[in-house]
Structure formats: C-alpha cells, structure tokens
C-alpha cells in the first residue's frame, strides 16, 4: 500500500463518494446515477465486467472502496462511448471509468497483471519518449511485457509480415523512429501539468 493510499483512507474514512468526487476525473457526477442500468446493457464487453458501471456507481455510494479500486472492471472499457450517449442523465461514464482506473493506478492498488492496465501504461510511456507513438516498439512491448513473449510474437508474426508488406509497419522504427522536434519542450509541459495535478490531489489528501 502506498503512503498516498493510506493518507486517502485516513482522510475519507467515512465517505468513499467524497473521495471520488474530489479526486477522480468527472467524479462529481457519480451521485447523479439513477441506477437505470442502461450503461450496463449498452457496454460491448459488459459480460466481461465483474462489476458493471451501474454497480460501480452504487458501490461507490455504499463505500465499497477496495472492491471498486482493486477491481479489473474499469479496465474492460473499450472507450466506445455507448454508455455516455445513452445515459438518460448524461453522466460522462466513459471518463469516470478511465478516471477510476487512473486513480487506482496512482494509489498503487490497481490489479498488477491486468493486461489493459499494463498495455495502457506502455502506450503512455511509449508516446512520452518522443512525442509520437512508435508502433513497432509498442508491438514488441505488447508481446513481451503483456503477452507471453515469443509465443505471442509467433502467434502474431503473420500479421506483422502482412503489415510490413503493405508498408504499414517499419522494422527500422526499432532504431529510432518518428519523433517531434521539440521533445524537451513537450517534456517540460507534461512535467508542469503533472506537478499542478499532484499539488491539487495532495491538497485533497492532506
């Protein structure tokens, strides 16, 4: 358990809803859920969620902090935005799910071996290096850090080959690849954004 997790438990002892409202992206919307279940029924991977968004909203209000934040449910979101456009109360459900997933990760209590959690982090690290995604390195990371290494790589080798033949995959990306010019400027912008965001959250936790 991280120090931040302990601090947040201490501060919001009796109200997980308040914690979510203060710290999770678009979290202030959670209390607006009227439990109709349209989101649960609209989710393309609904059957893969241990707790559907509808259930997650009720669990937040019921103070089920660990069950929500350590769940792999939010990591099943494909960002299809079906739930957002169908919600009768217009809750930004997709963003709340992303926000909960991110918050769990920030607290260090997201499920460690969850494939989408791992892939999503690799994607962010990848794009941060040079300001643009290096698809080849992302693919290699996917096979070896999320998948089962050579087994996954071999399973997908024909796809890689076909993409290469269609000039939609470039092996030379491994040695550099596309980049923006002002990488240091971008890094400064993101560092400042992280600093501002952390200051805001630290204020809530303190």
């Amino acid at each position: 358990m991280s120090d931040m997790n302990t601090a947040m438990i201490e501060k919001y002892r009796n109200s997980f809803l308040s914690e979510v409202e203060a710290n999770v992206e678009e979290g202030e919307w959670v209390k607006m859920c009227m439990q109709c279940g349209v989101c649960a029924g609209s989710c393309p991977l609904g059957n893969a969620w241990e707790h559907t968004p509808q259930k997650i909203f009720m669990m937040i209000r019921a103070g089920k902090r660990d069950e929500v934040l350590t769940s792999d449910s939010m990591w099943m979101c494909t960002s299809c935005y079906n739930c957002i456009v169908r919600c009768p109360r217009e809750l930004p459900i997709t963003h709340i799910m992303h926000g909960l997933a991110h918050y769990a990760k920030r607290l260090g209590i997201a499920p460690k071996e969850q494939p989408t959690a791992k892939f999503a982090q690799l994607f962010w690290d990848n794009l941060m290096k040079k300001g643009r995604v290096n698809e080849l390195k992302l693919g290699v990371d996917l096979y070896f850090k999320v998948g089962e290494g050579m087994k996954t790589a071999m399973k997908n080798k024909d796809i890689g080959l076909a993409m290469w033949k269609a000039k939609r995959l470039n092996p030379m990306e491994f040695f550099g690849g596309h980049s923006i010019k002002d990488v240091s400027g971008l890094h400064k912008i993101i560092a400042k954004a992280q600093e501002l965001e952390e200051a805001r959250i630290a204020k809530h936790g303190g």
Partner: protein
Amino acid sequence: MAKREYSFYPGCSSQKGASSSNYLVSVQTMCEELDIQLNEIPDWNCCAASIGYAGGGELPRLALSARNIALSEEHNPGQDIVATCAACWLATRETQERLQHDEGLLAEANTALAEAGLKLRADAPIKHMAEVLIQDIGYEEIGSKVKKPLEGIKIAGYVGCQTNRPFGIAGESYENPKYLDKLVETLGADSIPTYEKKVQCCGGALAFSEPEKSQEMIKGIIEAAYDHGADMIVTPCPVCQMNVEVYQDQINATHGTKFKMPVVYYSTLMSVAYGRSAADAALNGQVIPAKKLEEIAAK
C-alpha cells in the same frame, strides 16, 4: 489557391511506415480532387488516444492536445482543425470542450504550455474529415467529381464508435447514422442501410490487450457484412480499419470461418471513384486486397 484550407492533425498512425499510412495517402488524393488544402500543424504530438489514461492523469492528457491546438492557433490562425483519425479528433475536441467549460483547467493548461512558450485560446472548431466532407462540402459536390462510379459493388458502411460517439456528425443519430451509406450511394456503389453492426465496437485498443474478447466482436462485424452480401466494408476510423482487416486469419483459425473481407477507408473509395490510380488510392496498403476496386482503378 485551394478552395478550402484546414489546419491538419494527421496523427501517429498516419506517418510513413505506420499502420494507417495508406489512409493518409488516399486522403491526400481525395483532397487534391476536392481542392482542399491541408496545412499540417507543425511539430504536432500524440493525443494519447483513449488508452493513455493509465499513465496520464487528466491534466497531462489534456496538455498533450492543448499543445497541438496552441500550435495550430499560432501557425495556422483562423483555420478549423481537421483530423482524419477518430481518436485524434475525439481527444482534441474533448480537450477543447473541457477547457472551454472549466476556466481553472484552462489556466492550468496555459501554465503548463508556457513552459514551452505556447499559449492557448481554445476557440477553433475541431472537425473530423467526415464532417468536412458532409457538412462543408456536401454530397452534391462530392458526387459531381465522380468519374468512375463504383457500380456493382456492395459496401457495408461500418461507422464504428469514436467517429460517431460522443460527438458524431450533425443531424445523424448515434444508433443509426446514415452518412456512410449516403456516401457509398453518392459514389455509385450499393449501400447496406440495414447493416446492423454499423456502430458495433471492434474492441479499440483492447484488440491488443484482450484479443479473444475483441475478436469475438470483430467476428460479428464481418459476419453481418457477409450476411448482407457485402463485397467490402468501408470505415472512417484507422483503428476500426486495422482491427477488422488484420485479424481475419486468426478469427478463421479460432472459429472455423472463411473470412476474407476487404476493409477500406472512405477516402480509398473516393480516390478510385474520382478516377485516380490504385497507388493514389493506396490500394497497395490493403492486407486483404480490394480486388473490385483494383479492377475499376485499372480501367
């Protein structure tokens, strides 16, 4: 001078040797024919798509798109921003709207951007290329440029998710958008208005992390196209295109199907219908060849 000019955000996957480089080639051809000038945003960066949320918090993610918008405001002032990738468009427009509605976040974004000498107003319209075609140009003008109608080809219009939700195309419904079908008809091909999987999710980025679950959904998208007698599928989204095209062999191996359904971009269809070569239409970028389009392009 070109009839129309836009500030262009091409996105990572459109770059040379990347997974939708064929999309960009056909978009450039299409724009030449429609007299559209695309002014690339100088030094644009990745938008973090909809999967960047694990590593990036709200403000760092918004800052990525804010940098692109700021660069566009500085170098392409007064021009609408246009993206061809659904995720690029969504992330950029989402950022714009959130910053417009939250002065505190806008101030923080500007504090971050100041680190690289940039400043943001967040007031230019942000459009998907489909909006440019349908709203700014219109079916009539699109149709007037057709030299080789795509006669006898039946095409399933697969709109997918993020070109359609949460913003979508004005006047179209989320559940049954019809613009791709209208575009297909405008180009002289046969549309399938009752293609029931037109807004079904393909798994998006989860096609990588949850391949079995995603391929199950992709299977449905292709199967329905076959059921309607489609010769090919058309889509406006790079992730949809790749996901629905490249996993067909794996799906065949798992499910015993015999899929070999070409999946093309609207810009590919338009380039061929406008009489351009197979190379200009990027037909060589297909993993599953679109033979009927090749035949028309060769005529």
